[in-house]
């Protein structure tokens, strides 16, 4: 899985292409830690090109959410694909994370 990030005006966008599974999960944590350490604590993880996610991937997202919150910011997810949506519902994680349609809209209201 390939990760890339881009710091925008009011948030940083992290993009993941491929399968966010147990192998990729530690990488995601590293990338987000780097982004937050760089001063962007408002992070959007864009999942538009993530076609598969497992529970380890979701777990990593929670770890990243904690890191962003502790830095005074927030972590949001956008562009969720059907399989990922299913996993979110299966684990009740949709109770915790709102899936925004696009990265731009994720921090749209504040």
């Amino acid at each position, binding site marked *: 899985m390939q990760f890339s990030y881009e710091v925008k005006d009011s948030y940083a966008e992290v993009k993941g292409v491929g399968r966010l599974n*147990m*192998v990729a*999960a*530690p990488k995601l944590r590293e990338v987000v830690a780097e982004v937050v350490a760089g001063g962007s604590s408002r992070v959007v993880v864009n999942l538009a090109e993530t076609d598969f996610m*497992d*529970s*380890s991937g*979701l*777990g990593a997202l*929670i*770890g990243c*959410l*904690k890191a962003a*919150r*502790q830095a005074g910011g*927030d*972590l*949001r997810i956008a562009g969720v694909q059907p399989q990922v949506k299913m996993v979110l519902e*299966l*684990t*009740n*994680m*949709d*109770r*915790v*994370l*709102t899936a925004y349609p696009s990265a731009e809209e994720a921090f749209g209201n*504040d």
Partner: protein
Amino acid sequence: MTRFWTRLIVVLTVILGVNYVAWRWLASLNWEAWWIAVPLVIAETYSLIDVMLFGLTVWNLKIRKPPPAAPADATVDVFITTYNEPLDLVLTTALAAKDIRWPHSTWILDDGNRPELRELAEAHGIGYVTRSSDWTPDMPRHAKAGNLNNALMLTFGEYLLILDADQIPEPDILDKTLGYFNDDKVALVQTPQYFINVPADDPLGSQAPLFYGPIQQGKDGWNAAFFCGSNAILRREALMQLGLVGYVKATEQSVRRALAASRSAIKKARHSAEAENPLVGQMLDEVEAATNTAQQELDSGASLSEITYRVRRKVDDAVRTLVAADFSALQADLEEIAAMELAHVGESGITTVAGDAVDRMSGREWSPLGALESVHAVLEAISVERTGEAQPIMPLATISVTEDMATAMRLHALGWKSVYHHEILANGLAPEDLKTMLTQRLRWAQGTMQVLLRENPLVQRGLSWGQRLMYFSTMWSYLGGFAAVVYFAAPIIYLTLGILPVSSLSFEFFVRFIPFMVVNQALFLVAGHGIPTWRGQQYSLALFPTWIKSCTTAARNVWFGRPLGFAVTPKARQSGGPSWSLIRPQIIVAVLLAVALVAGITRLLVGLSEPLGTLVNVAWVAFDLVVLSVLVKAVLYKGFVPEGSGAPENPESPEGPQERNADAV
């Protein structure tokens, strides 16, 4: 065929058992001696339920065929958990783990954080894991469950083989078990725990052939094979899913609780001295408005991260605005004073408020809100970070010191399957002295009772009734200590005082009791295929003080938050001579039984009691004494000496278990 006979005997046991116990309740109680009659009939009812649950277990006995081959690309992490075991013992296991044939990564999970072990691991090319920096000293550590949860975040194999530091795996352990995971719903494969440092007569009752045999095979038949902490393979996805579901549940609960607590904290704060400050009063208004909105959002189903984020933002913004307003008023005052030249200007020369003061004073700790500690604490709790734990995701259950049982039960409740693979694929070391053995049994019993009291299997949604009863059955068996006391007391009371809890030892008693007893023993014989179960039966009665202590300490722990007095089981033999003090209650009982024997015979000779009653109770006392006699053997046991010349039993291992333990002391 065996299945047919087993089921037939189960049916007979239930019929004859109910026939006996129902008669005992309805027609045989000696109400004049209700104080022993009622406890005895309750104990007998307890035992009937116990044997019925055993019957239910073996009803579905599952003999599995070898699984298909696993996909060649299945990735595995082998975890060896250790806390304070001797280094060479850990290393022996780790090297055996490294030699497992299926491609895998081996990790030593060292909760003792020992630099020497790290060096040893690195020298042998074995992974080494200790708690990450998230586990700050103020976080609960959760013993072995915490150790495993930490390692889960640092590794990424699809499957995890978990081994205690003293369980040496066979090279083919994964070849023989991974194939079960071809079924996508299988989360766990448990193999037996077998001990190589136990003599044939097993003085400490270490081997559990009944459990790692018909009981696990029976539970397997109900899709309820237990996870027993070691020698088991788990699916990471299942554990992580469990961690996520647990996280969501814990977070939602804590947010709900925090919102409720917030309202009462605000109410209280309004009556405090600080609230007379108008600034504080306004802040309380803002906090109240924010929590009320959050509650509405929660009820309308908004996501927890949004809700908590907005509460935080609103409160922070309000505090900032109010503090800034306060400061500008202060600034205005200062300027006014300066203008009137009334102020003595200090060294700094200028009486302006520093630029970052507003920022600093708006921080949670510093703002006037920080002074209202209760409100402050409540606001901190409105979060999704699970601040009370080192990591938000805790896959292995932390509600009990037997994390294995609690975890498996939750996996089953989520719809995962488990497998019991009946083949010894790891060789372990059992405690070699009574004290260590008692500590270990106490810990298992306490953990089991904690699970019962915290997550009663009978009311867990997602479990089938078969699964509920399989978990309940194990918990029920640990209540046996109370029944044992009654079983010891009843014959003592008859032989010394002549008081019989049964209205009469009539023909009717024997005709109901004896067939039940016979079929009861036959059940163990048939279900166990003739495996030795006597040692286990002895210990289940003889360790009654341990079982009772486990119930009382677990209840105190769960209901009143008192510590369990938990100790890690030492793997090395404790030094010192025979320790009779460990079994003081049992010695007292044995003396009372012996006195009763003499008293009973004397009473018979002088014509105070009848022959039949005396005979029955003398036999009963003799049985009790034979049961307790196992403890004499246990106290005198000096540790394992391998048979023959003392040569190592396992030629592949450079040292026998005996030497290993001698080194350890």
